[in-house]
């Protein structure tokens, strides 16, 4: 067994602390990087370990112009992504020319007891400098008593518009949600980073 020697009161080679030592509240579970990916699936790490989970999305860039980044849940480990959902959607936008602003409900972007995918970043542009970012909070996915609530907020650049989307709703099931899939409505996820955290 090797010994570590203290250097300036630090243990420079330590890469892992024991479970009894808190590493903070946001615990990174996994990171996935898109590279012309049809889908990005999280099929492990979503369980009863934490009462809530947070996904962070960094510079999600589509292959296809003006397509929506969306998600669905699975109750069977990722074999099927088709959980029934009821959701709300609203957004605010402002274009670079300063000629158009709006705040309103997106009736075409919500779901009512639908198994379809729910968009969280609607209409991302595929220009070289265009992308979307977001945070998605998923509550208690392993509950077998309650429906599973989620809420997200995103920001994107699309067709010279700065757009801020808000989504909330629930997976209307008492089965566990143990996998989540992300994809674009059309074409691949050209690039981007998604991180999954568990909240202590």
């Amino acid at each position, binding site marked *: 067994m090797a010994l570590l020697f203290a250097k300036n009161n630090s243990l420079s080679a330590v890469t892992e*602390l024991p479970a009894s030592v808190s590493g903070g509240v946001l615990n990174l579970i996994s990171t996935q990087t898109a590279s012309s990916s049809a889908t990005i699936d999280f099929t492990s790490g979503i369980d009863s370990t934490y009462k809530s989970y947070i996904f962070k999305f960094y510079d999600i860039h589509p292959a296809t112009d003006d397509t929506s980044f969306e998600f669905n849940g699975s109750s069977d480990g990722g074999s099927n992504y088709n959980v029934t959902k009821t959701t709300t959607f609203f957004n605010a936008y402002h274009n670079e020319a300063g000629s158009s602003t709006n705040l309103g409900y997106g009736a075409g972007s919500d779901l009512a007891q639908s198994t379809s995918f729910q968009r969280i970043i609607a209409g991302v542009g595929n220009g070289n400098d265009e992308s979307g970012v977001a945070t998605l909070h998923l509550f208690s996915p392993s509950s077998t008593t309650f429906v599973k609530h989620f809420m997200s907020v995103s920001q994107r650049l699309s067709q010279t518009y700065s757009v801020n989307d808000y989504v909330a709703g629930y997976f209307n099931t008492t089965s566990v949600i143990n996998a989540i899939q992300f994809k674009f409505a059309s074409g691949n996820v050209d690039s981007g980073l998604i991180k999954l955290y568990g909240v202590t």
Partner: protein
Amino acid sequence: MAFGLVKHNNNSISAITTAGQLTSGAMTLIKEQTASSSASISFVDGSGGVVLDSTYPIYKFEFINIHPSNDGAKFNFNMSIDGGSNYNVTKTSSNLEIYHYEDDSSSVFNGTSGGTLQQGTGDLAVLRGVGSDNDQCGCGTMFLFSPSNTTFMKHFQIRSVRSQSIDYAGDNLFCGYGNTTSAIDSIIFRMSAGDIDSGTIKLFGIKGS
């Protein structure tokens, strides 16, 4: 200076149980409370391990699966400046309300005075009208800024999502302030009617630097 030897096990340290001066991240879990037919759940600075003072400039509450005993009851909060003896801080707030029915019959997007206060001392909603069906509940987060400040009023931001008693998904963004320059040292959560049948509330502190 004496150094003890620490057993090294595949680049992990297995014998340490406290981190001492090691950083534990910018956000710290202060207290978690679980409701079980509870009339209220309160977080009082200095009581039961609760810290709600100048230690952190921002506090965050997380609400998980709040389930009421009474159908359609609101999940409310109020603040105290006297250690929880009185929960009656004057507040002014706003409410952006969005909902969508499961049968797709209606959706609403509205800035509304419903669920708000105008210099009122009553309770304010975190969740408006949670269903009491076995599978219905509500979740959300609340940020409370600088509660111990004695110069400024005390701002808060809430976002919550719920399965409403009449079967819709409801999203609310509540913002406002406790209109007092006294320190806020206690928060109470309770339903507008009946008990909090079940649910979890977590209090986190967020470091300023």
